[in-house]
């Protein structure tokens, strides 16, 4: 089975998380800049006088598609690298993926996901 990990992270944690993932052999990912808020609902920013409330904060969304058996290790790695212990550290969502196709070769499934030196060959 193939899974997709969608991790919402603090912008400033992206570099650390990517380095940690590289260390365990995650070679492919993409990143989207997103804005949002959780239960705490935004932050106060300083204005000309006093402050004003901003609802949506900048975050990054990290997308990784990988095989089932690597999910736990990857999620642990992300959590460890991205944690600050404060409100707003983000969330990770995990979905099943029906199919993966590598456009260059039309390979499908596991073959489309494996690379020399990736997490499965370590």
């Amino acid at each position, binding site marked *: 089975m193939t899974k997709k990990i969608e991790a919402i992270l603090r912008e400033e944690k992206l570099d650390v998380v990517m380095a940690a993932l590289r260390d365990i052999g995650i070679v492919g990912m993409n990143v989207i800049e997103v804005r949002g808020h959780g239960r705490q609902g935004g932050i106060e*920013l*300083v*204005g*000309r*006088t*006093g*402050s*004003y*409330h*901003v*609802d949506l904060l900048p975050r990054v969304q990290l997308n990784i598609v990988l095989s089932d058996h690597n999910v736990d290790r990857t999620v642990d790695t992300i959590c460890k690298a991205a944690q600050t212990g404060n409100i707003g550290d983000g969330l990770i969502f995990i979905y099943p993926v029906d199919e993966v196709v590598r456009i260059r070769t039309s390979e499908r499934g596991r073959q489309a996901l494996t690379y020399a030196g990736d997490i499965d060959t370590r």
Partner: protein
Amino acid sequence: MTTINTGDTAWVLFATALVLMMTPALAFFYGGMVRKKNILSTLNLSIIVIGLISIQWVLIGYTLAFGNSTGGLIGNLKYAGLTGVGAAPNAQYAPNIPHLAFAAFQMMFAIITPALITGALVERVRFRTFLVFVLLWATFVYDPVAHWVWGAGGILHKLGTLDFAGGTVVHITAGYSALAFAIVIGRRRWFGHAPIEPSSIPFTVLGAGLLWMGWFGFNGGSALAANGLAVNALVTSNTAAAASAVMWMLLTWRDNKPSVLGIVTGAVVGLVAITPASGYVSPLSALIIGAVAAPVSYYAIKLRQRMQLDESLDVWACHGVGGTWGALATGIFASKAINPTGANGLLFGNPVQFVIQIIAVVLVIAFSFGMTFVIASVLKKLIGLRVSQNEEEVGLDISEHGERAYS
């Protein structure tokens, strides 16, 4: 005796260029504070004023402000189309530079003043109505007040009002007109319900920096000569701006964190306050004028916010209130030791000057607020002041100009 001095002429021409630059600088100062869907619209409100008022000033503006006085209220049409305004000096206004240089320098003041008002009406004004408003406002508010204060024979000039570079003529007229216009046009949609976040504080910082530099021409150039008085005006301006910026930093720091937007706002407010006083007070007095200007405008903004009034970019608090403080401060700190052609203020044993300043301030506030309220109300009835709700939500860049700032 009129003899053209080339050094004086060179300085006034350069100062004219510096003051022209202040209007695009103001465009960026304001543009950075609106949402990104309205940034082009906001920039353009200032830029188009350069176009409109340059024409208005040549045709009738200059002569209404500086033509021969008609009862002290308005200039006659002697200089309409700048007829007779040329290379020869005008002994009444500046015997050392070409009359046309004086008219050009004054044109830049006539341009930036209505541009200041735009901070009150951003993100919702209908562009074509704004064009009509600017022409009416320049003709019926700015030109008369400039004549009262600066025109030979103007009522406030005869009274002995001191306004070196435009505390009443520029800042009080713009600030109180902004207040009146904001009341008539009403709040932006969702004001107070959804956050309105500045699109680019860096633009605002850039604009403030260029305004600060341009102000050396605004106040220093108002000496109309390259002399010690010009230097005094430049140094007092810089001192007041610095004192006000530092004070504003402390105010935001006490309430929160030292705000960059606050610090540059403070600098502008200090420059506003010193404008009428710059050629009459010492650098030490300027330090006090700037340091007091910051809290005065700071709490004026807080008051405006508490009243839920959407005078969007605080033209009233910064220019109206800051300018009022500056005009009154001129009556307190003015000293003949600095400028023998001026007068002594309250601190130098002449309380009458303070009373004169109060009279000028009250008259200019009442006239600017009242006239603008009437002009805006009439335009509202005849052609409408605002874009539609949908156009406002889409943003004026697209709905009024069919352009967007960023792809």
